[in-house]
C-alpha cells in the first residue's frame, strides 16, 4: 500500500520538471489558446513537450486514450493529492521512484504518476533519497527513473537508497514487478550505470522485470515516452479502462487538477499537535518542543533538513503600529495574489519588528525628522546600524509621528516577512507524518519594554495545538548522516541539539550499527537539559554510545562544549582516526568557531600536528563530508 509515510522526500524543492516549451506542430494554435484558459502553464508545457514527441498515429491513440480516461467511471483523480485509500487493492498501486540530479527524472516520474492516476490507478512519485527502502516489500509495481552521476555513481540524493538496496539488508522482493528508465550522458564512460545497477539488483532480489530497461541519452524525452507506452499495456487492467465517446484532449486535460506541491511559495498549513516547554522551572530561558502534522501534505524530509516557518506578527504589535501611524487596519493593501487589509498584511506579509535601512530612509523622508535624515545619510552607516539595533519599527513610528500618513506612504518602506528556518528535530521513521522542532523563545528588553522574536514569539504565544503554522521543507544536503556503520560525533549547544534527535531516531529505525557520541551544552543541568530522558534512553539502549554535557551556569567556572572536547581529546582523536563523521550545530557567532578551535587543539595535541597540518586535517574532513556544520 502507498501512504505518505513511506516517503522521506517529496520532489526536491527547486527541482523543476525540466520539460521545455516550444511550439507544437501537432496541437494547433486555436486549441492551444483554449487550453491555456483551462490548464496551468506547467500542464500546458508538459502537454506540449509530450505532443512534440508524437507521430500522427500516436497522437490519435493518445486522444482516444484520454477520452477513454474521461469516460471511465469518474476515474480522474487528483495527482498525489492526499493519502491513498488504505483498503484499495494493492494491484492498483504503482510506485514511481526517481533519482534526480537536475529534475529531469523528477519531471518524468510525476508525469507518469499523473497518467496512471488519471487512469484511475494509484501512483505515487517519490525521490529515492528519502524512500524507506523496506517499504518496497509491500509494493507490486515499481517503476524506476534514475539519472547517473557523472562518474557513474547514483545521484547524490539517492546514495542512501543505493547503499540500502545494494547492501545486505535489502529485502527480497519476489512480489515486485519493475522496470527501469535510465537517464545518462553517453559522453561519459559509465553510461546510465546507476540505472543498470538497479535493474540488475532488483532482479537479484527476486523482482520480475515488467519491461526491459530503456537507456536514455541527454535527449531523453522520446525514449522516455516509449518506455511509458511500452509499460502501459503491461500494467494491471484497472489502469487501462477504455471505450467511451471520444472527447477532445483539451477538454479532458483541463479536468486534471494540478498536484498540490507545498514549497516555500506555497507553504503547507501544518496543524500543531504538541507545543510544550522543554526547559524546567527556574530556567533562565524558554525552549519549546513543537510537533506539527504533515499528514496529507505530501511533505517529506531527511534528518538534517530544516523546516521553513512563516510566522505571523504579534497582534498587539500590529495594533500598536496602526495606532501610532493613525492608519486604519481596514485600509486595502495590494500584494501578490490580490488585495488584503492593512491589518492582515501587517500581521502576515511584512516585517514589522526590526527596522531596515530602507524603512529608516523611507520614514526619514516621510517624517522629515532631522535625526532620521542624518542617520539615513550614506556616510552615517555605523551610527545607523547602532541605531537600528536599538530601535524597532514601532519605536521609530512612535518617536517620529507623521501626521496624515497614508498606506501608500507606509507600506513600501516595509520588507516582506521572511520565513524562519528551524533544524528539524525528528525523523519520519520515528514520527510518520510529523515534523518536530526545537524552538528557543527569544525574549529581551528594549527601551524598557519586553520584546520578542517574530517566529519564536508566534510559536510561544499563539501556536496552541490545533492552530496551524505555514511551513515548507528546506533541503539541507550538507548535513546528512553517513553510512550506518560510520561513527558519528555530534556537537551541539542549545537548540543545536535538534538535528541529533532526528539523527538518532533515524539511526534507530535503520538499525544502524555505527557508534555515536553526543556533546551537548546549555546553561543549567536541572532545567535546560533538552530531551534529557531521550538521551538517557538512547545511552541505555546503546543507540547513543557516549554523551558529554557542559552546563555553563551551574558552577562558578563556565564550561562549554569546546571544553568537553578538549577534556576528551584522546578518545575524540581516536574516533576521528576511526573515520568518525563530525557534526556541529548551533550558534554560528561563538560556539562554532570555539568548537573549531578546540578541534584544532585536539588534533595538534593528540595527532602531534602543527597548526597548519591540523587545519589541513579538518579541511580534508570537510572535503570528505566528514565535518558538516549547521550553524546559524
Amino acid at each position, binding site marked *: 500500500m502507498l501512504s505518505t509515510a513511506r516517503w522521506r522526500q517529496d520532489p526536491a524543492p527547486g527541482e523543476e520538471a525540466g520539460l521545455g516549451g516550444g511550439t507544437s506542430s501537432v496541437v494547433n494554435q486555436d486549441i492551444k489558446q483554449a487550453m491555456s484558459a483551462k490548464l496551468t502553464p506547467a500542464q500546458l508545457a508538459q502537454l506540449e513537450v509530450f505532443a512534440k514527441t508524437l507521430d500522427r498515429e500516436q497522437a490519435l491513440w493518445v486522444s482516444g486514450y484520454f477520452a477513454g480516461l474521461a469516460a471511465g467511471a469518474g476515474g480522474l483523480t487528483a495527482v498525489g493529492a492526499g493519502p491513498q485509500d488504505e483498503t484499495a487493492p494493492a494491484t492498483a498501486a504503482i510506485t514511481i521512484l526517481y533519482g534526480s540530479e537536475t529534475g529531469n527524472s523528477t519531471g518524468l516520474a510525476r508525469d507518469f504518476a499523473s497518467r496512471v492516476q488519471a487512469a484511475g490507478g494509484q501512483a505515487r512519485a517519490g525521490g529515492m533519497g528519502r524512500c524507506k527502502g523496506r517499504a518496497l516489500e509491500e509494493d507490486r509495481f515499481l517503476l524506476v527513473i534514475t539519472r547517473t552521476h557523472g562518474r557513474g555513481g547514483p545521484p547524490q540524493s539517492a546514495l542512501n537508497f543505493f547503499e540500502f538496496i545494494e547492501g545486505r539488508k535489502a529485502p527480497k522482493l519476489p512480489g515486485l514487478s519493475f522496470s527501469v528508465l535510465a537517464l545518462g550522458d553517453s559522453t561519459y564512460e559509465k553510461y546510465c550505470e546507476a540505472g543498470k545497477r538497479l535493474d540488475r539488483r532488483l532482479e537479484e532480489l527476486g523482482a520480475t522485470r515488467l519491461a526491459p530497461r530503456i537507456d536514455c541519452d541527454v535527449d531523453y524525452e522520446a525514449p522516455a515516452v516509449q518506455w511509458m507506452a511500452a509499460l502501459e499495456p503491461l500494467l494491471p487492467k484497472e489502469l487501462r479502462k477504455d471505450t467511451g465517446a471520444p472527447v477532445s484532449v483539451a477538454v479532458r486535460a483541463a479536468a486534471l487538477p494540478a498536484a498540490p506541491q507545498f514549497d516555500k511559495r506555497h507553504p503547507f498549513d501544518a496543524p500543531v499537535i504538541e507545543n*510544550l516547554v*522543554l526547559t524546567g522551572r527556574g530556567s533562565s530561558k524558554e525552549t519549546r*518542543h513543537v510537533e506539527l502534522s504533515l499528514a496529507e501534505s505530501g511533505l517529506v524530509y531527511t534528518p538534517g533538513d530544516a523546516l521553513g516557518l512563516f510566522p505571523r506578527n504579534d497582534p498587539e504589535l500590529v495594533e500598536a503600529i496602526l495606532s501610532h501611524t493613525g492608519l486604519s487596519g481596514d485600509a486595502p493593501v495590494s500584494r501578490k495574489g490580490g488585495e488584503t487589509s492593512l491589518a492582515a498584511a501587517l500581521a502576515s506579509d511584512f516585517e514589522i519588528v526590526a527596522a531596515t535601512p530602507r524603512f529608516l530612509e523611507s520614514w526619514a523622508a516621510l517624517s522629515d525628522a532631522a535625526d532620521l535624515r542624518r542617520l539615513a545619510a550614506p556616510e552615517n552607516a555605523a551610527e545607523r546600524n547602532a541605531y537600528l539595533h536599538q530601535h524597532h519599527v514601532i519605536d521609530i513610528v512612535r518617536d517620529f509621528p507623521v501626521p496624515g500618513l497614508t498606506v501608500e506612504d507606509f507600506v513600501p518602506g516595509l520588507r516582506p516577512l521572511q520565513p524562519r528556518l528551524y533544524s528539524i528535530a525528528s525523523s519520519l521513521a520515528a514520527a510518520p507524518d510529523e515534523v518536530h522542532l526545537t524552538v528557543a523563545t527569544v525574549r529581551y528588553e528594549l527601551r524598557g519594554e519586553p520584546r520578542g522574536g517574530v517566529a519564536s514569539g508566534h510559536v510561544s504565544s499563539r501556536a496552541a495545538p490545533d492552530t496551524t503554522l505555514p511551513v515548507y521543507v528546506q533541503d539541507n544536503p550538507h548535513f546528512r548522516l553517513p553510512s550506518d556503520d560510520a561513527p558519528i560525533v555530534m556537537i551541539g549547544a542549545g537548540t543545536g541539539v535538534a538535528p541529533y534527535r532526528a539523527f538518532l531516531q533515524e539511526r534507530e529505525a535503520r538499525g544502524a550499527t555505527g557508534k555515536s557520541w553526543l556533546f551537548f551544552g546549555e546553561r543549567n*543541568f536541572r532545567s535546560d537539559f533538552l530531551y534529557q530522558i531521550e538521551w538517557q534512553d538512547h545511552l541505555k539502549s546503546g543507540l547513543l554510545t557516549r554523551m558529554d554535557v557542559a552546563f555553563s551556569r*551551574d558552577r562558578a567556572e563556565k564550561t562549554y562544549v569546546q571544553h568537553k572536547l578538549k577534556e576528551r581529546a584522546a578518545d575524540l582523536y581516536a574516533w576521528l582516526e576511526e573515520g568518525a563523521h563530525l557534526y556541529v550545530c548551533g550558534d554560528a557567532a561563538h560556539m562554532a568557531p570555539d568548537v573549531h578551535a578546540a578541534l584544532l587543539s585536539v588534533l595538534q595535541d593528540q595527532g602531534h600536528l602543527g597548526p597548519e597540518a591540523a587545519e589541513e586535517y579538518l579541511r580534508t574532513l570537510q572535503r570528505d563530508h566528514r565535518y558538516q556544520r549547521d550553524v546559524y
Partner: protein
Amino acid sequence: MSIELVEPPHAPTDRSRDRSQPLSNLGPDETLKAGSNHLRGTIAESLLDEISAGITFPDQKLLKFHGMYQQDDRDLRDERRRQKLEPAHQFMVRVRLPGGVCTPAQWIKLDKLARAHGGETLRLTTRQTFQFHWILKRDLKATIQGLHEALLDTVAACGDDTRGVMCAVNPALSGLHAEVYNMARDASNHAAWKSGAYHEIWYGEKKVASSEGEEPFYGDTYMPRKFKIGFAIPPSNDIDVYAQDLGFIAIVKGHKLEGFNVAIGGSMGRTDGKPETYPRLASVIGYIPAARVTETIDAVMSVQRDYGDRKDRAHARFKYTIDDKGLDWIKAEIENRLGFALEAARTYAFTSNGDVLGWSESDGGRSQFTLFIENGRIANHPGLALMDALLTIARIHEGTFRLTPNQNLAIADVGREQRPVIQALLEEYGLDEQGGASAVRRNSMACVALPTCGLAMAESERYLPGLISKIEPLLAKHNLMDTPITLRMTGCPNGCSRPYNSEIGLTGRAPGKYNLYIGGGFHGHRLNKLYRENIGEAAILSALDDVLGQYAQGRRPGEHFGDFVIRAGIVPEVTEGRHFND
C-alpha cells in the same frame, strides 16, 4: 563478637529464611549487599555520571547505608516527564547525631551547609537528628565533607543497620543526661558499620587493607532490615522506647544511674492490605546493669542478624522474628549469647511522651528552653525567621542544643548569665511565647512526606498544621484546648512519625485520604486501633468532633483521651501488635 553461627542449646528453630541460607535462597537485597564490596557498589562512579542527577538503582539502595536517600520533587514529577526531563532528583542527607545533641559550632556549620546546598532548610526528625533535603548530587561530597569538618557524619543514618541511637532529652538532670547520652553515643559508634567505603567515597581517602575483615560484626550482608536503638529516662518516654527494636529504660536511684530495663521488638511500620504486617510495641524482657549495655546490644543485634527473615523485607524487622520464634525463645537466645541471665525488670513509670516546652530548670543552676518547632521544619518562614533566629542564638549560645524526639529543639545547658540574653533573642524573633498553640498542636508530629519522600501516598507535613487549625475549633467547642492529646500523621503506613501509638493517628492512603486511628497510650505504651478507614477531611473532622465530644462529656478526672475511648468502648484495646489488624 563472632559472626559464626551459634546453634542455641535450648531449642532448634526454622533456619530456612535467615542468613544461614545461601544468597540464592534469600531476597535480592541480600545479594546486592553481599556483592557491594562492603557498601561501595558503584557509588563513586554514579556520583561522576553527568547525564543524570540521580544514581543507579543498586547504588540508591547502598547509599542509604551512607545516610542518604535519592528523592525527587514529586510536585514536579509529571510536569518534568512531559518536558522530557528526568525527575528533579535530589538527595535527603540524614546526619548521625546520637541522642540529638549538637554544639553551637556544629549548628552554625549545619546552617551554612543547608543554606549553601540544602534549599535553605533543615528538618529535625522524629529520631533526633537533622535532615537536609534538596541536596543535588554534585553537592553531596561538599556537604559530607562540610559535616566532617564539624565532626559529624551520616554513617548508618539509614540502611539495614543501627540507624540513629536516641536518648531522652531530660531537662531536669543534666548529670544523668550526660551519663546516658554518653552511652547512646558510644552505642552508636559501636554499632555503626565499619567499612572503609565511607571514608573512601566521601573523603577521598585511600583504601586501607585490613586483616580482620571490614565488618567484624555485620559481615557481608549487614542486618536484615533497619534496627533502632533508644535510651529512655523515666518518667519521660519522649523517645517512645516501645517503638524501638531495642530500648533501654534507665533505672535510677536517687540521681544515680543503676542500669536499664531492656525492651525489644518495637516497630511501627506496616503495609495496608497486608494483615500479616503490623506495628508492635517493644516487650520488656529484663534488667541489666549499666556496664552491660554494649554486650547487650551485640547480643540482641546478633540474634536478629542471624535469625531475621532475609527472604521478605516486609517481614524482616525484629518484631516478626520475635513473634515467629516466640519471645521466650528469643530471650533465651539473647541470654545464651550474653552468657548470663537477665535480671527481672525493675519497676519504672512513664507519664508522657511529649516535651515540656518553654524554660525549665536543670540541676546545677542551668536551665533550658524547649522550643516548639512545628513538624521540625527549620526555615525562614514568612513572618517568622526561624532559621535566622536559631543561627543568631547558636552564635552566642555556650551550652548545647538537644533535638527532641518530638521534632522540637531544646536550647540546653544555659547558664544564669546567658539566660536573659537568650530570652531577649527569643523575644526579638517572636519565639518566646509558644504562639497560643493548642495542646494538641504542641503534641502533634508529622513526617516529611510530599514532595520529597518517595514513599508518601498523601500529604503530611504540609497538611497537618492546616488540619489542626480546623480541629482546634472543635477542641474549643468541647473545651479541650489545654488538654494534651497526642496526634501524629504520616503520609504512608510506614510510620516515621510513630502514628500507631498516638492517641489520634492519621496515616495516608491516597491524596486527601487517611486512615484514622484512636486509642493509643498517652505515653506511647499502647497501640491505637483503626477507627475509620480511608476517609477525607470532612469525615475526619466529623469523626473527631463526635469522639472528642464524648470524651469531653464522659472523661474521668485526669483520664487521657486514648484511655477514654477504650473504656467507653469506642474502639477495642490493642494488647499486642499481632492483634492490631484483628
